């Protein structure tokens, strides 16, 4: 039977009323936990695992997958409206999304996020069905040196995409890199910069830092301005729905985001954050309106949101084909498979085709359900912004604090949240960009570990970094991305670049 026949057969499983019901529970719960900071899809699935013990395998696995997709959807809502990313994959969405929301364009921002997630989820799920065996081969080609090269590319492109002043952007990035050093060094097991505080041994949680810098810092800043500022949050300006130009500016980022997110999600050490960061950088570079970035460019929401949903589907590639869990949620889904005596891995497609294809088909169904569930809610969500400002910010503070405590009930975590919040306030006051700090914290440890792993494997031989065509190719691309603009600028060629440069400094 061909893949297509299997998929059709899977759809008959997925359209069973009971299975549909499980999928509905899954996506509803997923959206809810995605909206609530602190409760991620991983925790929800872990809590539900014992409850589903008595259910049939197909139904509960499909419910888990619904939670996973739903969580990716819901995470964008708080990012856009409250500048409070619920999970690390939606941090980038907050950058442009929240600016849009404050300019009265929360509706289109939420809509492009929802539709982008749908488009990405749809394409990526189909890709999962048809391309999984090939994508997984590609993923296995990636070893430490290739990941290191990928991180370098991410650093170069992403840091170029931030900020109006290169000096301030780099300062922020290095603050993030310094924070990334805190905790147990993974390769030697030794503690670094933890000053004897056991809670610091696992390093600084990315979401804690992001919520502190974005939400707490913002709230403090607004409070410090008192009533003197006239800047007013407009809940709705123009249509709640996307305009023709919004559509025109969104569809390409959706597709590009999917293209970036899916393969990176499928890589065992990829993860959703890298995909969203690369997508953001790509959109900024390709946009016809680069000046809008930082002030609410719709491309900056559409691309990363598509990328993060595509990477969720990508994560299922190594899980279903190799039994490799590459994210916390995937690890728990693996536990779910095992609970029913199923061993995901190279044999799963052969031993339980009905279940696998049922799962893939119900992801398609869940994706449609999510769109139907989320689009009407947008009108309701944007009403949040009509809440008077002092109440809104009090609410944001409460929400951010609760989320952090919910994730890790420790006074130290709360202390960090407040401390970084004050740091975020100071950075705003002196006009330092905030996003590079978070980028440094995400990319720093990955780049360091992959570099050291590569060198350990090669026993200290640096040429290993360019020893494979893939690694060498990516590094070359990164070098070009760094050097070409410099040379062009030095020679005074390229009016566009010169103009860009003058805007940058």
């Amino acid at each position, binding site marked *: 039977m061909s893949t297509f026949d299997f998929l059709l057969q899977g759809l008959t499983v997925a359209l069973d009323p009971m299975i549909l019901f499980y999928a509905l529970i899954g996506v509803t719960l997923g959206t809810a936990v995605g909206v609530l900071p602190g*409760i991620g899809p*991983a*925790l929800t*699935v*872990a*809590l*539900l*695992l*014992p*409850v589903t*013990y008595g259910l049939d395998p197909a139904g509960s696995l499909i419910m888990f997958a619904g939670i996973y997709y739903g969580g990716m959807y819901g995470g964008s809502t708080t990012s856009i409206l409250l500048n409070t990313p619920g999970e690390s994959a939606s941090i980038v969405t907050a950058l442009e999304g929240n600016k849009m929301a404050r300019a009265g364009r929360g509706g289109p921002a939420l809509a492009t996020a929802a539709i982008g997630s749908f488009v990405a989820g749809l394409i990526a799920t189909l890709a999962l069905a048809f391309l999984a065996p090939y994508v997984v081969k590609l*993923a*296995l*080609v*990636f*070893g*430490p040196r290739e990941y290191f090269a990928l991180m370098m590319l991410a650093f170069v492109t992403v840091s170029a995409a931030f900020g109006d002043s290169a000096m301030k952007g780099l300062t922020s990035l290095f603050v993030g890199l310094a924070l990334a050093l805190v905790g*147990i*060094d*993974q*390769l*030697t*097991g*030794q*503690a670094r910069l933890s000053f004897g505080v*056991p*809670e610091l*041994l*696992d390093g600084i949680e990315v979401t804690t830092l992001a919520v502190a810098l974005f939400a707490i810092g913002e709230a403090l800043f607004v409070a410090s301005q008192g009533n003197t500022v006239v800047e007013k949050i407009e809940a709705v300006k123009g249509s709640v729905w996307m305009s023709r130009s919004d559509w025109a500016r969104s569809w390409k980022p959706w597709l590009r985001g999917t293209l970036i997110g899916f393969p990176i999600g499928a890589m*065992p*050490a990829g993860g959703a954050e890298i995909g969203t960061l690369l997508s953001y950088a790509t959109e900024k570079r390709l946009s016809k309106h680069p000046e809008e970035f930082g002030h609410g460019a719709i491309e900056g929401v559409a691309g990363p949101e598509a990328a993060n949903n595509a990477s969720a589907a990508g994560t299922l590639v*190594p899980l279903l084909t*190799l*039994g*490799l*869990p*590459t994210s*916390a949620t*995937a*690890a*728990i889904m693996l*536990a779910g498979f*095992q*609970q*029913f*005596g199923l*061993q*995901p*891995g*190279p*044999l799963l497609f052969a031993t339980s085709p009905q279940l696998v294809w049922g799962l893939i088909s119900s992801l398609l169904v869940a994706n449609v359900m999510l769109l139907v569930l989320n689009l009407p809610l947008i009108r309701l969500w944007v009403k949040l912004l009509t809440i008077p400002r002092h109440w809104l910010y009090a609410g944001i503070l409460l929400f951010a604090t609760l989320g952090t405590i*919910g994730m*890790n*009930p*420790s006074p130290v975590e709360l202390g960090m949240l407040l401390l970084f919040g004050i740091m975020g306030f100071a950075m705003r006051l002196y006009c330092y960009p905030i996003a590079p700090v978070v980028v440094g914290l995400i990319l720093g440890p990955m780049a360091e*570990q992959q570099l050291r*792993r590569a060198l*350990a*494997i090669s*026993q200290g031989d640096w040429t290993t970094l360019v020893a494979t065509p893939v690694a060498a190719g990516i590094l070359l691309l990164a070098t070009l991305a760094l050097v070409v603009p410099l040379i062009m600028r030095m020679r005074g060629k390229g009016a566009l670049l010169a103009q860009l440069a003058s805007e940058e400094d």
Partner: protein
Amino acid sequence: MKHTLLSALFVAALAAPAFATDYMIMAPAAPGGGWDSTARSMQEVMQAEGIAGSVQVQNVPGAGGTVGLAQFASTAAGDPSQLIVGGYVMVGAILTNASPVSLADVTPIARLTGEAEGIAVSASSPIQTIGELVEMMKADPGSVSWAGGSAGGVDHITVGLLAKAAGVDPTKINYVAFSGGGEALAAILGNQVTVGISGVGEFLPQVEAGTMRMLAVSTADKWQGTDAPTLIEAGYDVNVQNWRMVAAAPGLSAEQKAAVSADIDKLVNSAGWKSMLETKGWANTYLAGADFDAQLAKDIESTTVVLKDIGLVK
């Protein structure tokens, strides 16, 4: 919030006998890992079998369980209704993190389950036996790169013990730590490293599918599901079991400790626990009382020595 709600639902659904004790089990790890699923399995079986009225699980993740352990030792002292799940990984983490709180600060009750460590290579690797691998290590320890879990963890310790037993300098081993099983497995399958080490369960599906070859297991006896030799059979005196245990609060009276031990004994001998072990694929390596205390002391001692040999602990 959600947690309490679910627990409440659970209690309502499984209305247990009124006289049974209530327990609060701390899983010193994030949801989804081995300790968390051990704690949640205990919760489920203890409630279903009526060993306890209501059981709640609390996750305190961090630093190989030492964050949770420190919190448990200070807040649960003298409270017989509090339990903590832990394991061999904690023994190493306490040493490498120079944790101020150790297993001596809680009351270990029993070892519940355990798993052998497996040593495996990708199917396309030229290495056929554990003997060949060790010869390579003897010739040039650095040329054999090992993919495994976090530095100083049970995977790393096992490699160190093997090197010592084979007469290779343990400080020279080339151990590459990966976070999470998936990444290490990908590195092995993708031939990025020479050999991999992890819990046997992680490798078995790959071995069945013919993508990996198991060279040896680390326990004294052969492991179910693979005919790979034990390290002892292969001539290296290494016996490691990655076990999970349950401990009670510090400062309990002898009667209180006996009551907790009796409840755990009831749990382990219940039909529910047996079927739970079967579905999870866990081996029952129950060991309690003085035997467990002696085994624990032995493990702590050998771990301290090997971590010093590797150079992770001064």
